[in-house]
């Protein structure tokens, strides 16, 4: 496989992994939502992310020269082969944590997919054009919730502040480019994620200050997701996500 093709394949896999992990986490809220309407809204959002994962994986399957299918990418890889940002695999925590993570990811996604919709690769541009509409709505929702929670009761404020404090260092790798990705940027295919940071920081500052929350200090940063280095949570997530395909290989319904 030519290096350019391989880089594109890895790019699709990484983007699919981001969507798959967050989609799975959000799906865990199904029937556990704080009330019926929010339960449905969270599940809708989960389906948006899983739909994205499917689009990226089926494109990856087209490029792949080993004949792997979208299901192979989703269900039959081991921990170290997943390339998602760590923030997407973290357990849901409480509702404030879920929404704080969502705001951070949604604000990033809006910038990222706006960039990717300009990609010279028509398939990636097409997926991005669909995803950006969803992400704008996701951001509207997560922003709305952070304002309610941050500027809500003493307890909701404290839980939301704690969530941002615990999540803040996970943002760094979202703006940290790999060498392979840089090559794709030069070819006009990939988005220069480093360039998204300024807008992202502006959005976060605007929402958090309006929600009477403190912007956490940039005192720590953790990454490695794009290199396959994950938190201890991913193995447990995969155990559930992959159970059916592992126990009954090739099973369909």
């Amino acid at each position, binding site marked *: 496989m030519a290096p350019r093709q391989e880089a594109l394949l890895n790019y699709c896999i990484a983007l699919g992994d981001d969507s798959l992990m967050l989609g799975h986490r959000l799906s865990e809220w199904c029937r556990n939502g*704080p*009330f*019926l*309407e*929010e339960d*449905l*809204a969270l599940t*809708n959002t989960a389906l948006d992310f899983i739909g994205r994962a499917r689009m990226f994986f089926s494109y990856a399957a087209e490029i792949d020269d080993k004949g792997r299918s979208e299901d192979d990418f989703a269900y039959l890889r081991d921990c170290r082969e997943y390339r998602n940002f760590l923030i997407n695999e973290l357990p849901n925590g409480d509702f404030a944590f879920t929404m704080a993570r969502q705001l951070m990811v949604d604000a990033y996604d809006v910038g990222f997919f706006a960039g990717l919709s300009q990609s010279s690769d028509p398939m990636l541009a097409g997926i991005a054009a669909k995803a950006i509409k969803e992400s704008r*709505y996701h951001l*509207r*929702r997560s922003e*709305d919730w952070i304002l*309610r929670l941050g500027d809500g009761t003493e307890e909701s404020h404290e839980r939301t502040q704690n969530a941002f404090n615990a999540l803040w260092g996970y943002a760094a790798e979202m703006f940290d480019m790999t060498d392979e990705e840089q090559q794709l940027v030069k070819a006009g295919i990939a988005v220069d994620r480093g360039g998204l940071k300024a807008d992202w920081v502006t959005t976060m500052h605007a929402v958090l200050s309006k929600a009477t929350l403190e912007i956490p200090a940039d005192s720590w940063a953790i990454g490695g997701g794009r290199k396959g280095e994950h938190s201890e949570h991913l193995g447990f997530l995969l155990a559930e996500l992959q159970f059916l395909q592992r126990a009954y290989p090739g099973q369909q319904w």
Partner: protein
Amino acid sequence: MNQQSQPLFEIFIRSKRGLDHRHVGSLHAEDSVQALEYARDVYLRRSEGVSIWVVRSSDITASQESDVASFYDPMDDKPYRHATHFKLPKEVDNM
């Protein structure tokens, strides 16, 4: 969050341009802004509409069962009020 403390909203959806908004159901939300978002997630999952109205249920004044005699019965024997003798052109849709 206690569902009992959240106000109820009635949801109206216009399925396409040119039609009226129709009542589709109700849901609980903190305020009208949130009700609009939930209406999107609860009632428009299969792209059923192009426009949403939300109205706080407590803002609706409804006629009562006991009003039947004075409200509706008097109309029963006034058939001349019905426009039954007009033929509608085929082009007039959705009357």
